[in-house]
């Protein structure tokens, strides 16, 4: 039970959260880590702790990067941080406080510093029929593989763009069966656009050659790899049965009961937002990130961000930014001085530069095409929770709704359980389309607590309020709702 004021409260136990905990503990900080999962590893290393029990073929398919997660988890478990699994953090009600809920109920935790290391989620890709059962994210298939060793037992298709499409195709090919097809949106234009970043990318040569090797492996297995696809749509009654697309103007289709979609991952910044952190639109990543400095410090006092939650850069970079934020926390709390912090940061930052080098190339090459960001078909569901279609959002934007909050008021888009996670991008893009702005100017809807499910009864018995400083919450800064 957390009753004392902890030095550093970390949200998330993926590579960033774990590295931050290890670094902070090494420097003498008291650390608490809150994780909604049952075991450390986040999503990328999910269940990596148990990987040694898996068969050799599964371990081989999951790969050395994933397996190395087990070492990180071991180090984390031994570092002295208090680990709170199956705990959801749903609000940052004031500086130095976290609102959490677990099987024992909801309570407030006091802390001197907060690190949001809540990772990322797959970019939602609103296409016609994407809500049909049997249409899932490629990441979902990865999760099923990691946590339960589940693989498709029927023909499946992978569609979209980004390295995870290739990786998943190869893994499932080795473990179960090759995909019926690999449909990629990338076109010559994307390569041309990315080529400017190639010199940097080439210095990450091993990564690039890995991708090419995977493609060759898939081709050898007879997987049709189709590039430049457009107008992808899924159809079916009780579940997906068939998909259609176009390529070079020519229509094509294929039967399938399982469609795995992917077009990159985006930061899960909700908690940072309710903590009052300013967010910015990153045009390269086509995503919102919390505004942060080199240490991950955000615009909100005492709140830092690390890992993919602060910008997508992968697991290795996540561990580095986690360590950097641990150093900064230790410095802020007087355990080390600035010189010492900066000295320790040098090797981390130089490795970080190397890890980040390939990002602009990947971001440019795998940028989701316009029709995957802005559904052309008005009947496409944009808000999955409330079943609001693109046409309704376009109509509201034409009526004069200039931003996502008004769209929400007028269409209910964003009012369901996911609270806008699945629709925020499409809403910004559709408003941008109708108002000739860009999504960064349009912005995202106002994110309000609770950012994780908590019941009325749990709220009613919220414990620990008396331990708060009682500062005014600043609730209505910049907006009434």
């Amino acid at each position, binding site marked *: 039970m957390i009753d004392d004021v902890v030095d550093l409260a970390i949200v998330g136990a993926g590579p960033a959260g774990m590295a931050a905990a290890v670094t902070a503990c090494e420097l003498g900080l008291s650390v608490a880590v809150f994780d909604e999962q049952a075991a450390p590893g986040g999503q990328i290393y999910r269940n990596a702790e148990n990987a040694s029990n898996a068969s050799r073929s599964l371990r081989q398919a999951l790969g050395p990067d994933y397996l190395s997660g087990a070492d990180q988890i071991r180090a984390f478990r031994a570092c002295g941080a208090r680990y709170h699994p199956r705990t959801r953090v749903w*609000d940052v*009600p*004031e500086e130095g*406080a976290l*609102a959490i809920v677990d099987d024992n109920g909801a309570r*407030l935790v006091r802390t001197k510093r907060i690190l949001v290391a809540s990772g990322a989620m797959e970019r939602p890709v609103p296409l016609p029929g994407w809500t049909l059962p049997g249409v899932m994210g490629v990441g979902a298939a990865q999760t099923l593989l990691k946590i339960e060793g589940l693989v498709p037992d029927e023909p499946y298709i992978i569609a979209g763009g980004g390295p995870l499409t290739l990786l998943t195709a190869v893994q499932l090919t080795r473990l179960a069966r090759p995909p019926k097809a690999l449909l990629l949106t990338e076109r010559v234009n994307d390569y041309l656009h990315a080529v400017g970043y190639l010199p940097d990318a080439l210095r990450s040569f091993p990564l690039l050659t890995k991708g090419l090797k995977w493609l060759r492996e898939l081709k050898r297995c007879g997987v049709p790899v189709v590039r430049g696809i457009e107008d992808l749509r899924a159809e079916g009654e009780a579940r997906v049965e068939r998909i259609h697309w176009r390529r070079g103007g020519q229509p094509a289709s294929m039967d399938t009961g399982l469609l795995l979609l992917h077009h990159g991952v985006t930061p899960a910044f909700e908690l940072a937002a309710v903590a009052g952190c300013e967010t910015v639109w990153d045009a390269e990543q086509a995503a919102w990130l919390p505004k942060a400095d080199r240490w991950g410090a955000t615009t909100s006092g005492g709140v830092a961000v690390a890992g993919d939650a602060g910008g997508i850069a992968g697991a290795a970079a996540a561990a580095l930014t986690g360590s950097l934020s641990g150093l900064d926390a230790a410095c802020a709390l007087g355990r080390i001085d600035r010189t010492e912090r900066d000295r320790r940061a040098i090797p981390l930052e130089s490795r970080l530069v190397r890890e980040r080098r390939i990002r602009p190339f990947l971001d440019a090459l795998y940028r989701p095409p316009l029709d995957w960001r802005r559904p052309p078909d008005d009947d496409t569901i944009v808000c999955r929770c*409330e079943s609001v279609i693109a046409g309704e959002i376009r109509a*509201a934007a034409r*009526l*004069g*709704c*200039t*931003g*996502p*909050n*008004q769209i929400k*008021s*007028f269409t*209910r888009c964003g*009012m*369901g*359980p996911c*609270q806008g996670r699945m629709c925020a991008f499409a809403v910004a893009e559709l408003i941008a389309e109708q108002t000739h702005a860009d999504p960064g100017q349009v*912005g995202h809807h*106002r994110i*309000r*607590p*609770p950012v994780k*499910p*908590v*019941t*009325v*009864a749990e*709220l*009613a*018995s*919220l414990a620990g*309020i008396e331990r*708060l400083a*009682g*500062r*005014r*919450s600043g*609730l*209505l800064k*910049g*907006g*009434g*709702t």
Partner: protein
Amino acid sequence: MMNSRDAAYVVIGGGLVGTALGYGLARLGHSVILLDEGDRALRASRGNFGLVWVQGKGLHKPEYAALSRRSADLWPGFAAELKEVTGIDVGHERRGGAMIASSEAELEGFVTMLEQIRSEAGDTPYDYEVLDHRGLEKLVPGLGPQIPGGTFSPYDGHVDPLCTLRALHDGFSVRHGKYVPNCAVTAIHPGESGFRLETAKGPVMADRVVIAAGLASADLAPMVGLNAPVRPVHGQLLITERAPRRLEIPTNIIRQVQNGGFQIGLSHEDLGFTTETRAALMRDIACNAVRALPYLGDLRVLRTWGALRIMTPDGFPIYAESARHPGVYVMTCHSGVTLAAAHALEAATWIAADGLPDEARPFSGERFDVQAA
């Protein structure tokens, strides 16, 4: 884009008050421009509870009690009109409403207040029922055992406030009103025949101006010799996930909205919001909710919602026309939902007439020295 006399009327403020007035004026056949701020503006209308409420209104101000009652009576026809004009069903229901008392003392307070309002109403009927626990539970099934009782008024109802705002916007458009968002007004200059407004999108000229800008009215009103001493009073709402319908009538603290979620909130008078932290507010609201309706405990809270009331010093509306510059009005209230029908169907005619009629006089704001020196 904007040149000499852009419209007969400019309404400043695209919330429930401004849009209802704009709709009402357009409905009368006038040319109307509705100027609104941007997406992130302090929008009281987004945080509204949605009650069309008569019970308890107008203590010591029988004209306000009567106005609320009149508006509630106009609402069914108004909702039907909006449906016909825009196709949007704003979900208006009028089956009465209940006030749930959390303690005997609170119940006594309700009764005293209602008795007083009734006596101030004179000959006009003012019906309500005082209910004990059993009586209230018939109306509010699943009522918590600690609740002593409450009061019921047949005049009360509720509506979806966001749908209403949407329908008003649509209706305004259908009636040829011109809506201009992202167009904050920075100054109003009275001229020889009409007014010139400075806005974020350039000057706008109109014969008459209606200031219905919520909190911003306080700054704009003095420019034309009016005073609108409004201040923000914050409140919190919790919205829960959808649940099967259990609560058929709205109450003062909880109502089940059209889509099935429960909206839970408390009036600012009860909690002294301005000094509480967010966490304490949420806990207190949740606590009261579970006390009133224990079955709410299992429902997940999707979101907390900041409600903003635009409060005048006495809580009653200000409907005033500038004496120094006739043709410019300030219209503000905190019950934008209840009064939407009266605003659209009645108050609009006041503005369109030559000088505000007698019915508007009690709200003229002379009570605050509304006319600046």
